[in-house]
């Protein structure tokens, strides 16, 4: 074997979540009552565009979750030995950006370091100059005159290739559409261009086009230059921002995954059984809710830090340690965020159990657990889904704030919060080092913005109160 797969705990959970989503999509496609509201989401332009962007982020996170160890080369054939470093598929795809480490800060697309250094000239004299970068634009002989021309050349090549790929894909789609609808290719193409289709295909095509161009340009330019510059230790900022996607998505997705079972069972039980069960559950979530969330998270993470520093020998590698901390953060965030959903579900179950069909089920002698599972839970699932998508963006934002206060993910984990935390003091430099913050801002803003837009569309489509009035 050339490599040894490594499955971290968060990877396993993330794969499990992906499977759940996949199965749900498969089931929903066959059932009309599930397909209709989701079809509504995709038919809205905002919903479709947001979904495309979110799928892109999710795929990057998924690629970044496939971890493995490479086989060491200089070992004899008979024994297998693997490197200690845990890599992901994304690391391999972005290998040039990961390995091309400069000495220290350099501006976006720069060919020189950010600060002057004493360098010995050819004639032996010392001089203060901006030294050339080891990798950024190293292929140029005379950077001053060639750089802009070179950049334009690379970008144009990237854009042309991107457009070719994109156009090929969409022409194929239109062609297949025309086959299945038995209409001519040109008529289908005309309908596609004018945006006359059941689903907003044109908007989706434009979004995917822009994304393809962005990916191609960043890969082409990124292999020769540092697209967003380098940070204090010379690491490529663009690479860091991309690696942070996994952390952001994981925090948003896994937190809901761990809190859902608790919120659903307790919420349904409180509303269905009432009496002392209701009292106890209400007491638990009111108590948890009374504690300011930031402080509860801070307290829990502090205690985790103490535990980890006292049991440092229990962790095999830094990656595993950082991974455990990420998982724990998700758990803590889950503990603080299930209360809201639980209260909503309790109120909804209260209402549902008085419905005639529940009375009918009781009269037929259906057991209580069966009524809960088959008649009540499916009827409040829309609330669960709405809450999940609404909470997602808030959790991504929360991660940044928590990492800033040093109670978020491990400092070794790539995350937007850590990037901001490390870069914010550099703004005070003159001239300011702005690129780390800008990169973190762009990637985080895009994710949160489209998650918010998507959440709005999902709420409009799934909430029977709103969709009924349309």
């Amino acid at each position: 074997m050339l490599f040894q797969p490594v499955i971290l705990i968060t990877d396993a959970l993330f794969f499990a979540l992906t499977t759940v989503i996949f199965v749900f999509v498969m089931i929903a496609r066959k059932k009309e009552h599930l397909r209709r509201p989701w079809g509504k989401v995709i038919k809205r332009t905002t919903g479709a565009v947001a979904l495309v962007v979110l799928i892109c982020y999710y795929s990057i996170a998924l690629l970044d979750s496939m971890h493995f160890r490479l086989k060491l080369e200089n070992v004899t054939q008979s024994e297998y030995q693997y490197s200690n470093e845990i890599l992901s598929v994304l690391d391999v795809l972005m290998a040039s950006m990961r390995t091309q480490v400069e000495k220290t800060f350099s501006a976006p697309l720069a060919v020189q370091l950010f600060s002057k250094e004493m360098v010995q000239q050819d004639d032996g004299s010392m001089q203060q100059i901006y030294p050339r970068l080891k990798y950024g634009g190293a292929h140029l002989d005379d950077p001053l005159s060639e750089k802009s021309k070179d950049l334009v050349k690379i970008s144009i090549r990237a854009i042309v290739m991107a457009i070719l790929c994109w156009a090929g894909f969409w022409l194929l789609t239109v062609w297949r559409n025309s086959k299945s609808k038995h209409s001519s290719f040109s008529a289908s193409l005309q309908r596609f261009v004018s945006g006359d289709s059941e689903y907003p295909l044109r908007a989706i095509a434009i979004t995917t086009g822009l994304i393809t161009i962005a990916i191609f340009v960043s890969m082409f330019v990124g292999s020769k230059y540092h697209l967003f510059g380098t940070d204090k230790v010379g690491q490529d900022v663009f690479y860091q921002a991309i690696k942070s996607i996994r952390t952001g998505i994981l925090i948003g997705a896994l937190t809901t995954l761990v809190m859902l079972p608790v919120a659903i069972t307790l919420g349904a039980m409180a509303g269905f059984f009432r009496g002392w069960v209701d009292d106890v559950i209400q007491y638990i979530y009111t108590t948890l809710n009374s504690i300011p969330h930031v402080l509860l998270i801070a307290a829990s993470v502090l205690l985790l830090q103490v535990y980890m520093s006292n049991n440092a020998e229990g962790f095999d590698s830094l990656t595993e340690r950082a991974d455990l901390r990420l998982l724990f953060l998700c758990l803590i965030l889950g503990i603080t965020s299930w209360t809201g959903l639980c209260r909503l579900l309790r109120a909804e179950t209260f209402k549902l159990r008085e419905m005639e069909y529940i009375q009918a089920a009781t009269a037929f002698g259906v057991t209580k657990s069966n009524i809960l599972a088959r008649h009540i839970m499916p009827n409040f699932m829309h609330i669960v889904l709405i809450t999940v998508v609404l909470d997602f963006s808030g959790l991504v934002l929360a991660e940044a704030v928590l990492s800033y206060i040093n109670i978020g993910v491990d400092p070794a984990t790539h995350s937007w919060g850590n990037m901001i935390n490390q870069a914010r003091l550099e703004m005070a430099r003159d001239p300011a080092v702005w690129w780390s913050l800008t990169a973190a801002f762009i990637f985080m803003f895009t994710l949160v913005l489209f998650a918010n837009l998507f959440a709005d569309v999902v709420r409009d489509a799934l909430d029977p109160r709103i969709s009924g009035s349309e």
Partner: protein
Amino acid sequence: MIAYIVRRVLYAFPLLLGINLITFVLFFVVNSPDDMAKNQLGQKHTTAQQIEDWKRERGYNLPLIYNEDASAGAKFTETIFYQKSIRLFVFDFGSSDSGRDISYDIANRMWPSLTIAVPHLIVGLLITITFALLIAFFRASYIDYWAVIICVALMSISTLFYIIGGQFIIGKLLKVVPISGYDTGLDALKFLILPVIIGIVGGIGSGTRWYRTIFLEEIGKDYVRTARSKGISEQLVLFRHVLRNALIPILTGVVVVLPLLFMGSLLTENFFGIPGLGSYTIDAINRQDFAIVRSMVYLGSVLYIIGLILTDISYTLVDPRIRLS
């Protein structure tokens, strides 16, 4: 009314007890005082004697719940649970791990927090309500559509960027006000403007969107139709009828956060170097001072519960249809 308030306050006690138990379990059972001592003193070259000393100085050398060595009643009072947790009930916070009196610090640092939080709340509320009312006036038009999208975009920007960007543009590029710091008296004004403005701008997106939905809900009600059918102009309908009735959910929503204003804002105070309770908490978190974090958790919970009680009372004050039972 008084009977209701008394009952609500009595309700709060089991909650406080629960919070106390949670903090106790978190701070003393999950990690023993020994762990904390080791963490504070460093991992290496720490003798058992040093740990014992550290614990004795801070009163952590007692048994957790039950003290066998003590006599009669002291069996329960000479314990960490009684000394550190039960005493929080009477707001006896004790001293921090570095030896300072926590109650004194809290009383001192409360005021800077309030000088930021109160103008932030009032001015922010006025601005967001105005915006929301304007959007509601232009409802179902392109102005409404784009205003909502702008609100969502503003919501999607992390608070960190508002603060860093605001500091950079207003403080560093334009040099209008100092970037951070604090002073007493009127001199404090120039330090307060920037954090208050940034706080308000950061809250506009979510605030406006939230109040817009409240206004729209109110506009769909029967009394508004009646008012319109009487021939009242749209402006009057909005300002006289809709605004007044929408103020009920808005105000009661604000009452919840009123007591929490004392706690200040963690991020703002930390970034702007304001010596309030927010930065006190952050400093404690960074120094791993568990005594302070524990006190702040308790204080925050108490203030939140007070806020809930005040909300219930304010409902009856602004809406006579709601009767206490």
